[in-house]
């Protein structure tokens, strides 16, 4: 045993660089396993902890018209409380209930107006004692002080962390609420599990605190400023945490039926925990990480196993005579196999240990960095999971065992006499002219012996090793092209959307829906520089079809065509714009299994009683209206539908010309001109304008994210190149070592060094070209897998795209890696002592 160990160590020392590279790949594989799986588990735990600790609602139900007025918008709190107490007798898993106000309004922060949401909850319990937390959907105070008993009589609020961070708000600052700009003092900054990600709705593609923020108020204060004393518009329910989604939905459905049918309330659809935006988005995010966390390490460890297989296979062939001698001396086959397997095992243990340590260290840093990237305000929990670490260790060891055992097992078959007769140098060719060369000969293309003949024949000499080099190139090219492709696809989608499709230069969002928008637009068009203007009304709607049991909730946009200007240039997959029909996006049409010409039914609010026109206050009821699909669009925004504003107006019974946004085209839209126009509009219409922004402002946050992604892309490109260097280095090294005597002979008979370099480079160039072609195909497949399967988000629709520049760069960077890989073995072989090398019978 001691001798075997000594032989193992000696063999590793003799090939230390090559074994080190394989150890490195194993280390990267194991560390990526540990890092990604543990990061996934950490984030999963962190989210669950935040949700559970803060009593995240199992479902919420709002009134049918939460922003409106009337019985479909508000519910008497006292009555509702008694209804709920009655209902919960029959549902043992009902843990807690919280009644709240959820109201979207305008904020004015540091002189800037923006959209916002106020959430109000009772700061006292049933006995009238102060309580610091709501029973459901709790909050964590990050900075500042708690509500006091007196707070329910004061204009005070908490600001949600994302909003606070954006505007640098802190304790004792002030923000304005609503059109009256009512000043509210900030008591503190809080984190809310409902807003782990700062998104107001699924339709908000580019969430930013600049456009949407959340504040928390005492309920009584909100009731007073909204003039809905004693009323609420949302029920939050916490059930037993262990219930499944279907069980929760069943209870929610029962509650809605009970409250509507037996108590005459008008309610919207319950929103389950899994459908809560932040919860849903974050779960999807870590799910993607988990999928990658399994796939990437397996690829890397597979590569390492193959590398070991090649290396040890070559070692056994080279040492076959020594093996024969050992067998002749009486060593058992088992002992000999053990030696080689021992080599592989030792390499994999080294790689696994390094990978485990690295993975644990990186995982503990990765989760906090990731949390910071997604602006998670809750504490991040990092834990060492012994099961994950153990599994990673086992994977690393198995890589070594399989990579070592398989090539050795068959190679030690021969009888000692056969091994002793074996001349490795005679076994480095198949003795055949490759098919490619014969084909070229048929085309009368003759290769010179000192020209392309040798590299071409070398390429076909050892299929396993050539395959190994090609695999290294394929992985590199596919990773690089996929990464660049992802970035280009996103960039192109955004460019197409915000340069071509969104056909406006300035967008004005109103706080309240005006009903004289056409007059407003006509007036704004008089401003110098404004060349066209139109308006749109955005609301939500649920679409049903006869062809599927699915329904889809979408952002419904009614477009007004003003003198041929729509503010939107459609990218049709099929059909066309018809102001009487409806246009669906591809994901919606696919979900509903509909096409152009089919009829769909929209559930939209219909005005039943007009309370006031300025601001627009009305009672609504939900109605189903049929529309014919006139077009299907393939655009960035996946969950959106369009119809003519006049049609929408008529079916919704809106008075006048309602709109919540105005879109303007400006001649020569420089920043100065746009600001000038913006200021004029603000001056005239500030009483009702929530926000005016340019396209650049709307996309600025996403562009920052894209830039960050660009750096990640280049990091992965570097990683892919390193992998290619490692794989190709090993096979080039072995190739050249096998040909050592031949190359020494060629040098002896007068072949210049540059010709040897050229031959090896041509051979590797052929490998790179073939590997690149296959790699680009895999790159496309990987791009599709990443974008359409792993990152499948129906509200983003991104066309896959890979430019010629990406194809060229993928090939070019990989070629650089291959040339780097061949440099070191070539340098060694060109500095051989010719006298010794020509005499050696070395493989």
């Amino acid at each position, binding site marked *: 045993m001691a001798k075997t160990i000594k032989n193992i160590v000696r063999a590793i020392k003799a090939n230390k660089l090559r074994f080190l590279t394989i150890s490195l790949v194993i280390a990267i594989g194991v560390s990526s396993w540990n890092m990604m799986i543990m990061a996934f588990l950490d984030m999963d735990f962190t989210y669950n902890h935040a949700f559970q600790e803060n009593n995240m609602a199992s479902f919420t139900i709002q009134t049918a018209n939460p922003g409106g007025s009337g019985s479909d918008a508000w519910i008497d709190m006292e009555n509702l409380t008694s209804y709920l107490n009655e209902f919960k007798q029959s549902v043992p898993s009902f843990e807690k209930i919280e009644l709240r106000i959820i109201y979207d309004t305008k904020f004015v922060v540091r002189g800037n107006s923006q959209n916002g949401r106020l959430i109000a909850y009772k700061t006292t319990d049933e006995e009238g004692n102060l309580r610091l937390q709501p029973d459901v959907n709790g909050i964590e105070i990050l900075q500042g002080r708690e509500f006091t008993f007196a707070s329910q009589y004061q204009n005070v609020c908490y600001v949600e962390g994302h909003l606070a961070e954006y505007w640098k708000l802190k304790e004792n600052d002030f923000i304005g609420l609503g059109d009256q700009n009512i000043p509210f003092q900030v008591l503190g900054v809080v984190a809310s599990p409902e807003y782990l990600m700062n998104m107001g709705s699924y339709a908000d593609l580019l969430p930013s605190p600049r456009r949407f923020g959340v504040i928390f108020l005492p309920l009584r204060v909100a009731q007073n400023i909204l003039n809905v004393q004693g009323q609420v518009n949302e029920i939050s329910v916490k059930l037993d945490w262990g219930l499944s989604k279907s069980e929760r939905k069943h209870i929610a459905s029962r509650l809605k039926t009970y409250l509507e049918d037996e108590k005459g309330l008008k309610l919207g659809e319950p929103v389950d925990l899994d459908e809560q935006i932040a919860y849903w988005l974050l779960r999807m995010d870590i799910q993607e990480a988990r999928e990658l966390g399994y796939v990437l390490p397996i690829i890397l460890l597979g590569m390492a196993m193959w590398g070991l297989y090649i290396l040890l296979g070559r070692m056994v062939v080279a040492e076959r005579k020594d093996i024969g001698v050992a067998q002749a001396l009486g060593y058992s086959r088992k002992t000999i196999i053990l030696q080689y397997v021992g080599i592989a095992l030792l390499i994999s243990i080294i790689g696994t240990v390094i990978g485990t340590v690295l993975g644990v260290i990186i995982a503990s840093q990765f989760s906090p960095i990731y949390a910071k990237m997604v602006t998670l305000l809750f504490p991040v929990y990092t834990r060492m999971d012994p099961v994950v670490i153990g599994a990673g260790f086992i994977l690393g060891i198995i890589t070594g065992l399989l990579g070592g055992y398989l090539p050795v097992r068959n190679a030690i078959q021969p009888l000692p006499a056969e091994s002793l007769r074996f001349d490795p*140098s*005679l076994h*480095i*060719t198949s*003795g*055949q002219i490759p098919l490619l060369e014969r084909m070229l000969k048929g085309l009368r293309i*003759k290769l*010179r*012996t*000192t020209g392309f*003949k*040798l590299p071409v*024949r*070398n390429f076909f*000499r050892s299929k396993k090793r050539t395959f190994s080099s090609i695999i290294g190139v394929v992985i590199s090219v596919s990773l690089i092209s996929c990464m660049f492709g992802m970035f280009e696809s996103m960039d192109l989608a955004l460019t197409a959307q915000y340069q071509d499709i969104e056909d406006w230069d300035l967008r004005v969002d109103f706080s309240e829906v005006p009903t004289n928008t056409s007059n407003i637009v006509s007036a704004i068009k008089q401003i110098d520089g404004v060349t066209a203007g139109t308006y749109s009304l955005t609301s939500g709607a649920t679409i049903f079809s006869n062809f599927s049991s699915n329904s889809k909730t979408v952002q419904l946009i009614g477009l007004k065509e003003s003198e041929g200007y729509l503010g939107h240039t459609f990218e049709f997959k099929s059909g066309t714009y018809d102001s009487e029909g409806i246009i669906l996006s591809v994901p919606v049409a696919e979900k509903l299994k509909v096409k152009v010409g089919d009829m769909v039914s929209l559930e939209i609010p219909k005005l039943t009683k007009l309370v006031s026109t300025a601001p627009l206050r009305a009672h609504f009821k939900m109605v189903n209206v049929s529309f014919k699909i006139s077009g299907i669009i393939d655009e960035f925004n996946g969950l959106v539908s369009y119809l003519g504003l006049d049609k929408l107006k008529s079916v919704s019974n809106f008075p006048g010309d309602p709109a919540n946004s105005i879109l303007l085209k400006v001649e020569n839209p420089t920043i100065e001109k746009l600001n000038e126009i913006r200021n004029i509009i603000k001056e005239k219409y500030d009483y009702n304008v929530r926000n005016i922004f340019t396209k650049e402002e709307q996309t600025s946050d996403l562009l920052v994210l894209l830039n960050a992604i660009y750096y990640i892309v280049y990091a992965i490109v570097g990683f892919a190149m390193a992998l290619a260097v490692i794989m190709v280095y090993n096979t080039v090294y072995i190739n050249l070592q096998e040909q050592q*005597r*031949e190359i020494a*002979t*060629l*040098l*002896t*008979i*007068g*072949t*210049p*060094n540059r010709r040897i370099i050229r031959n090896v480079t041509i051979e590797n160039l052929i490998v790179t070209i073939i590997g690149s072609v296959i790699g680009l195909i895999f790159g496309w497949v990987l791009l599709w897998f990443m974008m359409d399967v792993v990152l499948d988000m129906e509200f983003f629709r991104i066309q896959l795209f890979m430019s010629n520049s990406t194809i060229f760069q993928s090939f070019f960077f990989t070629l650089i890696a291959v040339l780097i890989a061949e440099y070191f073995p070539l340098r060694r072989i060109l500095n051989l*002592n*010719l*006298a010794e090398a*020509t*005499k050696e*019978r070395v493989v």
Partner: protein
Amino acid sequence: MAFIELKNVIKNYTLGETTTLALDGINLEIEKGELVIVYGPSGAGKTTLLNLIGGLDIPTEGDVTVAEIPVSTLSAQWLTVYRRKKVGVVFQFFNLISRLTALENVEYSLELVGVKENGKGKDTVSFNSKLIKNKAKEYLEKVELGDRMNHFPSQLSGGEQQRVSIARALAKEPEILLADEPTGNLDYNIGRKILELMEAMTGKALNRTVFIVTHNDAICPLGDRVIRLSDGQIIENYTQEYTPAKELYW
């Protein structure tokens, strides 16, 4: 000046911590066209001597001059040129390129130096592939392998491989032919045939200087000159009447 001169040549090899003295103060003069047998036991320095003359190695001390070229002071690049144009090598283990056929192995050597052709009364060097192929075939026929030209080394016997090696070395018509144990890997009959071949294709008429390294003293009578080495020193250096290869026996 002699065609080949070695003056006070010393060659050391360092392997790890051990330094081995391979040649110890060699002084030698060889005239053009001589067939020299370098003979001695294993480790005497025979191959080292050949390597220094052939430009495969450089001496630790001393000078090696061949045809007035200071071989021992040439750069690596010029040594390659020297080996290409002046030297032909026949190896003990044949050292054929396994992926090339017999014909292609000889062509390779010719493609490096070209083929001399007499055009318009003046010798020129041509790299025309047809000329090269014809020359290669000519030499393979000389070594009686005309019908085995398109075989790969793995399809040839030891003797056939050595004949290809000889054809490859001689096709470019070098001034010096170095053969290191050319029969060491062959049995008597084939070995003798190889020597006969080398004898026929070299010799004074062709003015080619030949060095044959051997540890087999039965081959010594083949040469015009015999140099006996032992422990890196020349023990004997004498000329003689040569004996034809067909009369040799071992």
